[in-house]
């Protein structure tokens, strides 16, 4: 028996420390390893695209920014209190503790963290193919720029986050809207420099140099740098890869007008947009297209007949029908189109108008109109042009990524919403900074005016 005891005592003294070493489990991979391999590094970037598809500014999901901004402005009417935040956005009753606002903020910065982490990992990586490394860096930089652009347009003054160090990011301060735009532009320029004009894969679901050009055109437009906006828009218009598509096939995954699409993240499934907007019986269960939007289409506009579906008899209830395939199909028919050539025509037209180049302006505008079955217009003054183009943008880009809100905002016309929303107030031009965020980082104070 004494031997048994001594055996155990010996056991006590040895091997204890090795026992406590556990390996990395099978569902995780070391950060350094990830970025030393082409495929795993690419998988890390793919996650950024997943996040973009699932939530935030570029997602078609119920509860993401595009549908909320649709309720916020005059595109959508909310028919049921089932989603309280649809109602709150619809009523302009967005408070600093609104959960959708903080979700939008947190999800966007989580997306930014994901790309910053990729940039961090790629910086020190060894063993990765150089071409892949550069491609991934370009995409990550572009995403970072695009997201900050949206943040500044939506929240006003926001921090520009380029680090993964939480000690830095938890105390980061705000930059002016202009400063954010400049830095976003700088990131896009860096991306422009290193990205190839071709897409990394056969489909248009990743960021190429053209995607960067498209966003730069839009950003210059918002910054009222008309020559640059026009220049970048025309680069794409003149690129034969992209052609104006007939209205009825525009959102199909093969569409030639798409510059950047997000591919649904569940195999076999079509877009979230279709699930978010479609309904089959009246009253509409959540949201429907607003009466004011339905009334603004010119007679014979193919976009009204193709992109809007009326339910019931009275002609009152209609839903966005840009995406017609709902749920699963084999093969998948539609991808969510984030950026498309039609917007470039409208940007070029607007920039040309501001530069008083009426031929160009009318030319671009009428190409858009004629494919929608409408007669040509002939604009000859800036006011007339801007009005016509805003109307054209409204019917072309409705329910797409908050275009309506940003267009009204940049042309200083948000107060026009009072016609349909008597409660609309000037301070609603930016969303409140999330209350919790201000608690956790006082450097973000003060809160946006009016909240």
């Amino acid at each position: 028996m004494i031997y048994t005891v001594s055996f155990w005592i010996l056991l006590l003294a040895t091997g204890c420390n090795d026992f406590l070493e556990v390996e990395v489990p099978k569902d995780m991979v070391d950060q350094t390893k990830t970025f030393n391999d082409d495929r795993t590094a690419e998988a890390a970037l793919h996650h950024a695209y997943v996040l973009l598809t699932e939530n935030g500014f570029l997602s078609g999901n119920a509860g993401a920014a595009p549908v909320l901004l649709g309720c916020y402005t005059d595109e959508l009417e909310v028919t049921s209190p089932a989603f309280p935040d649809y109602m709150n956005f619809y009523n302009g009753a967005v408070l600093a503790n609104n959960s959708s606002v903080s979700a939008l903020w947190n999800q966007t910065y989580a997306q930014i963290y994901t790309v910053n982490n990729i940039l961090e990992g790629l910086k020190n990586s060894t063993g990765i193919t150089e071409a892949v490394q550069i491609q991934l860096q370009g995409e990550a930089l572009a995403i970072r720029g695009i997201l900050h652009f949206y943040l500044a347009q939506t929240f006003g003054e926001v921090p520009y986050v380029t680090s993964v160090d939480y000690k830095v990011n938890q105390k980061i301060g705000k930059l002016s809207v202009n400063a954010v735009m400049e830095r976003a532009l700088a990131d896009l320029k860096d991306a422009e420099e290193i990205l190839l004009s071709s897409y990394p894969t056969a489909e248009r679901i990743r960021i190429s140099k053209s995607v960067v050009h498209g966003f730069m055109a839009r950003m210059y437009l918002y910054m009222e740098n008309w020559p640059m906006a026009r220049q970048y828009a025309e680069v794409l218009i003149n690129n034969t890869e992209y052609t104006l598509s007939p209205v009825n096939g525009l959102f199909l995954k093969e569409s030639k007008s798409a510059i950047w699409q997000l591919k649904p993240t569940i195999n076999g499934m079509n877009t979230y947009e279709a699930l978010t907007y479609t309904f089959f019986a009246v009253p509409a269960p959540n949201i429907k297209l607003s009466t004011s939007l339905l009334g603004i289409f010119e007679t014979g506009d193919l976009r009204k007949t193709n992109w809007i579906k009326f339910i019931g008899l009275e002609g009152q209830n209609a839903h966005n029908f840009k995406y017609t395939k709902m749920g699963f199909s084999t093969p998948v028919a539609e991808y969510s189109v984030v950026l498309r050539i039609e917007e470039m025509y409208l940007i070029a037209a607007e920039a040309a108008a501001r530069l008083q180049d009426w031929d160009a302006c009318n030319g671009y505008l009428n190409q858009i109109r004629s494919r929608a079955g409408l007669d040509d217009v002939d604009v000859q003054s800036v006011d007339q042009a801007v009005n016509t183009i805003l109307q054209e943008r409204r019917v072309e880009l409705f329910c797409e990524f908050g275009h309506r809100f940003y267009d009204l905002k940049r042309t200083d016309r948000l107060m026009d919403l009072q016609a349909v929303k008597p409660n609309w107030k000037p301070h609603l031009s930016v969303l409140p900074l999330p209350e919790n965020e201000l608690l956790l980082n006082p450097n973000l104070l003060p809160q946006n005016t009016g909240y």
Partner: protein
Amino acid sequence: MKKFTFAALAVPLMWVLLLLLFFSSNKLHAQETMVLSGVVKSADGSPMEGVTVWQKDTDNGTQTDLLGFYSLEVSSDSFLIFEYIGFKTQTIRVTNKVLNVTLVPDDDTLEELVINAGYYSVKDKERTGSISKITSKEIGQQPVANPLAAMQGRMAGVNITQSSGTPGGGFDIQIRGRNSLRTEGNAPLYIVDGVPYASQSNADQELSSGIMPLGNVSPLNSMNPNDIESIEVLKDADATAIYGSRGSNGVVLITTKKGSSDRTTFSLQSNTAVSTVSKYMDLMNTQQYLQMRRDAFVNGGINEYPENAYDVNGTWDQNRYTDWQREFIGGKAVSQNTQFSVGGGSGQTSYLFSATHRKDGTVYPGDFGYKRTNFMLNVNHHSKDRRFNFQGSVQKNDQNNKLMATDLTTAIFLPPNAPALYDEAGNINWENNTFENPLAKLNSKYLSETSDLIAQLNLSYEVAKNVRFSLLGGSTRTQGKEIRTMPSTIMNPSLQYTSANSSVNMVNLNKESWIVEPKINYSYSGDRGNLEVLLGSTFEERSQDVLGLSGSNFLSNDFIMNIQSAATQRVTKDAQTLYRYHALFARLNYTHKEKYIVNATARRDGSSRFGSNKKWGNFGALGAAWLFSREKALEENSWLSFGKLRASYGIAGNDLIGDYQYLNTLGLGLYTYDGMVTLEPLRLYNPDFSWETNKKLEAALELEFFNGKLAASAAWYRNRSSNQLVGIPLPGTTGFPSVQANLGATVENRGWEFTFRSMNLQKEKWSWNTSFNLTIPRNELIAFPNLEESTYANQYEIGKPVTIRKMYRYKGINPETGLFEFEDTNNDGKIDLNDRSVAVDVGVRLYGGIQNTLQYKNWSLDFLWQFVKQKAFSPDYRSNLLGEMENKNVRAGSYFGSGNGISLYQQPSLVSNNEAYRAYQNFANSDQVVTDGSYIRLKSLQLQYAWKIPQLAGISFTTFLQGQNLVTFTKFWGSDPETALGFLPALRTISFGATVNF
């Protein structure tokens, strides 16, 4: 090298000790022998058969015969031990050749009460630590499914709350307050017959959180309370430091029932219980509700009701009235529990087998419920010479819970004139697409099956005189399967969803653990005192495998349980975790003259949950006790029969943070992009975190009077938990909500615990006992470096409890606007976060229980009142704007402009009214929604009758009537002050049952 110091010291010490003992023990045998004989009788003079008689410290023994006679050859000048179950063991020095003995029944007084302290046992009177105990007597026939429920209100310093009345739900247990800033970091260590039992919920939060608050399912649900012999809760440093890094939040030791070697006993017990919601809220009726709604439109200046205001615009019948509480949670939940056990043995071996089946219904409409089957086998054996002991047990517990995926309690605030749930044809009524029928949600199910296997073995051998070596081995295995279905039928038919839109989520869980604990115990009794030394070691491993599957786009809803029939199948999770733990521990106990006791414990342990240079930690404690009643001056005292002062100080730790948190890794994402798997960042990288430590100090006084007829104790404790291991909340700009790190904050829990016990009446036919416990806990954040600049600045305040919430100060209703008003603390003209100046404590201020046991002839009555003084959130905390389509408590009818007395609420409004909406939101975050949540509750009442039927000698038959949560006195105006808002409250249960033993 540092890591080996403890072992390096321990090994040579042990060898020296062992050798010394080995040689000393040889002296034993060189003595003369003699034949001793005598008769053993009981107190009433009748001879006792089967009494074990043996010479102390030897294998030399016998049993008495029919006439109580024994004879035995013993060495002279030795001690003889007389043992019989149910009687006090006597040890008598041999002086004559004849030794007659009278055994007295063991009336379970404190003297013989032995407390299990985990690695060792100690007589209650001689313990130096703070340990509370309840036994199967208190657990009794309470119709509860979870052992924690049976403990509620019965232990000082142990606060247990039930978070939902749904069967299979969760309990929250806090032993001496919140030590950790993290909720999940406050769980105690559970140990069942020596084998650690994971304190984490087995449920997948994503699947279960709709029906279980926070997805919390108590792991102890699997245990049958009736299989438990005793539950000990270790509280202070003296008792918990030997559990090292896992003892910080206290230790709950569960000991299962053992068989007796006396005779074979069959036992059959069965009871049936009916549970109902004990209190409904007083909600508005149709007139009151519609008036409120109409006023909201009037106040909003809207003359024409909008299309979707179905309740007021005439779409719905305005004369209908339904109390939705009665529709959705008004059912009767019937429970049945049947247990069979057989136990017995002979001489050296005993066993107990028990099988139990339990079935719980729910108060919800529909076919839901919970089932559990338990098997347990316990075997004990000792060698004839008692040097070798064996104890082994196997438990198998199967649970099956079938519930809806979302607690229907959330639907009770439907407008009272909402349409009927079913149409005339008996189908779910959508009222022409204007009514989101909550019953449709019942089609979404949550199913959970759990199967546990616990096997445990404890061997011990007395290797030399006074030296006992023992080895504990244990293994557990838990297999769980959870399914949540989302069929298309839960959705409004206007969406025209088909089975192509149906989906199902499934999680399979496989948990395994093993533990090996060798230990060696040395005890020495000398003239001056007793010494006990314990050395031991722990090796433990826990592994977990999780496989999550999801399917969508089904062929038909009939196939929804079969993922194979889903067109889209995904693996949502395929993960494993491994946790390893290793420790060395020691205890040294010295008792001097049976009066002065010192107890020192130490543990060095390492955990795989920390980075490579932070794995190891040292813990220890010192406890002392002075039994002053044994001092000469007091020994003869007629009224003071026992008095003890004890104190302890030491450190225990906490490693409840989950595995792998120190790694810088990416994990597999849930979704794919371009058909490929993605890798997502899992957390912010910080490898440098370590144990949370808890320094515990305690002093206590224990007294007994009049031969134990009255007993009282008072304990004061102060625990300081520092090096807080928390997910420090971070702003969203960091990309994550938090980072795992040690925070320099110190949380102090201090308080007083009082217990009192009295035997009020002890007559031949009558007896009446009362026991009482009271805890006055205080929690305080005593240090927090740079709190003002930290992310916690608006959450905590130094000098205040960690349970505070910062809220607006409510001022009243503005007579001009008719809206709520709040104090603008910083006078900047607006109400925002910076005005949340009132720190409201929602923690518990006082709790306890008072229990009475009365016996008259064959009747016994036992009842327990539980009382809690606390603040709680009123239902207003989670309510929508008054005036919108949601029913409210009747008290909300006293709104501004209603003409119903003093206005308690602002005028009804619609969310389109920005100011009103904002004021109401601020109201929900003001001190006004924190109300008195104190309550006094008749927690348990039991009336029992033991039938004595002369013809059926040898059979005992008992019937009992039991009630749980029978009466509650409270000022709280919500449904139940104990359970979480928005979930089913704790139920009132009445049960009837019987037990037969033969």
